[in-house]
C-alpha cells in the first residue's frame, strides 16, 4: 500500500487539533468488529490521498474526535481513528 518514507506519518488519533493532514494508509485490524468499522471508514472516504483535520475533541481525554473530511465532519473514537495513518501537510 501507499507509504511515503520521506514524510513523517502519525496515527489520526495523534494528529494535533486544527492541523491539516492527508491520509496515507489504513490498517486492517484482525478483530472482526474493528474490521467492519475500518471498512466503513474507507467507505466514508478515509482513503489514501484525502485531506482531513481534527476540528474538535471531546473532553476529558481527547475522546471522541471530530474529523473534517471533505464536506463532512465525522465523530469517531480514538480507537477507531488509530487505524488511519496520516501525514501532516504544511
Amino acid at each position, binding site marked *: 500500500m501507499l507509504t511515503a518514507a520521506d514524510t513523517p506519518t502519525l496515527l489520526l488519533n495523534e494528529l494535533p487539533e486544527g492541523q491539516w493532514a492527508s491520509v496515507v494508509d*489504513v490498517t*486492517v485490524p484482525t478483530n472482526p*468488529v474493528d474490521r*467492519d*468499522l*475500518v*471498512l*466503513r*471508514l*474507507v*467507505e*466514508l*472516504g478515509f*482513503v489514501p*490521498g484525502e485531506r482531513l483535520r481534527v*476540528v*474538535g*475533541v*471531546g*473532553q*476529558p*481525554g481527547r*475522546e*471522541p474526535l*471530530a474529523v*473534517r473530511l*471533505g*464536506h*463532512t*465532519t*465525522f*465523530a*469517531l*473514537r480514538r*480507537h*477507531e481513528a488509530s487505524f488511519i495513518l496520516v501525514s501532516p501537510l504544511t
Partner: protein
Amino acid sequence: MEGEGLALPARIALLGNPNCGKTALFNLLTGSRQKVANYAGVTVERKEGTLHTTSGRRVSVLDLPGAYSLNALSNDEAMTRDVVTGHSLEALPDLLVCVADATNLRLHLRLVLEARRLGLPMVVVLNKMDRVKKLGIHIDMDVLARGLNVPVVGTVGVHAHGADALRAFLDLPVEATMLMPWKAHKLEQVLATQKDVARIFQRVVTEPAVDKDRSDRIDRLLMHPVLGFVALAVVLFLTFVAVFSLGGWLTALIEQGTSALGELLRTHMADGLLRGLLTEGIIGGVGGVLAFLPQILILFLFILALESSGYLPRAAFLLDRPMSKAGLSGRSFIPLLSSFACAIPGIMATRTISNWRDRLTTILIAPLMACSARIPVYTLLIAALFPRDPVAGALVMVGLYALGVVAAMAVAWVIKRTDRDRSRSPLLMELPAYQWPDPRSLAIGMWERAMIFVRRVGTIILALTIVMWALYTIPSPRTHAQGAPITRSLAGELGHALQYVFAPIGFNEEISIALVPGMAAREVVVSSLGMVYAMNGSEADVDAQLRERIHKEWPLATKLSLLIWLVFAPQCLSTFVAVKRETNSWKYMWIMGGYLFGLAYLASLITYQLTNALTSI
C-alpha cells in the same frame, strides 16, 4: 428490441445516505399521503407514500432507511440492503431513485456506484441543488450521467417546486429489472470503487478553492470543551422554558375547553351512569390525553429543528464522554431528550443506537426522564408544599427533573457493572453541515410524533380511564357505611388493601386508592385524588381544593414521599407496552417495571422515614 421490456414505473424506492435530504424530498413528493409502519418482523420504520408525476400518474414511493453502504452495520442498513437486493418480503421497486447530496458528492457517490451494480433501473437525484449554488460549487450533470451511464436529475427538497424534474422523469418508461446477485465487498473492492468515485468527482465537480461552508467556524464555538457546554445549557434552558410557558398556557386552554364541555353535558343530561361515563370517563380521558399534547409537541418542535439543523449530533458529540462514565454513548442523548416529552417516542428513537446493549440500557432508563405527564402532578404537590413561595417551588421542580437524570445515569452505571460483555461501543457518527430546518419536514415530523402519542399512548390512557371509571363507580360487594362513593367501589377496595403496602412510605388510604387508576398515566392521579376527596366543580376548582387539603392534611413527609415516588414509579402502562414491543421481550418489560417499582419504594421509604426522623427532633 426497442420498446420491449419498457414500462412506466409504478413503484419507486428512495435510496440514499443519511443526511442526503431524502426525508425532505420524500415529504415534498408525497406531502401528507404517507403511511408509517414497521417492516414485517423488525423494528425498522417503513415509510411509504404516493406521489403524482407531471402527467398526474400516481406512483407509490418507498422511503428506504438511510444507509451509508449496503455492507450493513445497523438494522436500518440491513433492511435497505435486503429490499434492494430482493431478499425481503417487499416487492422490488420498478425504479431505484438514488438520492445524493449534491454538496457532498465525494461521500455520496460511492453508494450510487454500489447501487448501480444491483441491476435495478436507476436514476440519480442530486438533491440540495440550491446549496450547490450558494457554496459556489459547479456540477456538470451531463458528464456525470455519461460517466455513470445512469440518468441524473437535480432537485431541491426544501422548495415547493424543487422536485418537478423528478416528477417529469417518472413519466418516462424504464427498462425491466435484471437483478444481479449481490455480494458484500471486501476492502480491496471498496478501495477500487473509491478510486472510481475520485475519478468521476474530479471530472464532474468544480469547487471553490476556499471552503465557503461556515460549519467549521460554528463548530469552533459549539464543540468547544467549555463554551460548547455553555451553549448546550442555554439551548436546553430555552427549550424547557418554552415547554413550560407556552405549553402550560396551551394546556390550560385545552383543560378549560374540556371542562366546559363536561359542564355542558352535566347541566343538560340527567344524572346517571351514562352521564358519568361521558363526563368522567370519556371527556375526562380524552381531555387528559390532549392536555399533554402541547408540551410534547413544543418539545418535539425544538428537538426536530435542532436535529435537522445539525446541532443535536454535535450535542451528542459533546456529551459522549460524560455519558460514557455511565456506560452510555452520545448516541443515547437524543432518545433520552425525547423522553422528556414522552417516554414512548423516546424509546422508539433508540432504534438509531446500533449497539444492542447501549440501546437496551437507554430503553430501560428512558422512563426516568420526567415526561410531560408528570408536570400536572408535580405542579399540584409543589403548590401544596410551597403555597406562597414560587421560587422554592421552581427549584424543587428543577430538582425533580435532575433527580430523574441522576438516577438514570446511576442505573445505567449499575447495568454496565453487571454486564459481562465489556466490549467497546463504537461511535461513528456523521456531524452534518449546518442548515436551516425545512418547515415542511418539521410539520410532518411533529404530526408523526403527535400520532404516535395519540395512537400508542392516547388509546391506552383513554381505555384505562374508562375501565378505571368503571372500577371506582361499581360498588364493592362489601358495604362500608361512610366515605366518598369511590372508597366504597372496587378501586376503593383495592386501594384499601394497598394502603398496608404503602403505609411504610407514608401513603394514606386516599393516595393508595388514587394510585390504582394512576397506573394508566400519572396525570390521572390528580383527578383521582379529586374523586377520592369527593370534590366537585371544574378542573381548576378541584385543583385549588386539592391543593388546600393536601397542604393542610398531609404531613410533610407524605408529600415529599409521594413526589419522590412519582419520579421513579412506572405509572404508565403505555411505557410497558412500548418496552415489550421495542425489545420484543416480556423479560425486559418486567425488568423495567420491577426495578422502577423497587427504586420508587426504596426512595420513598428513605424520604418518608428520614423526613419523619428529622422533623420529630
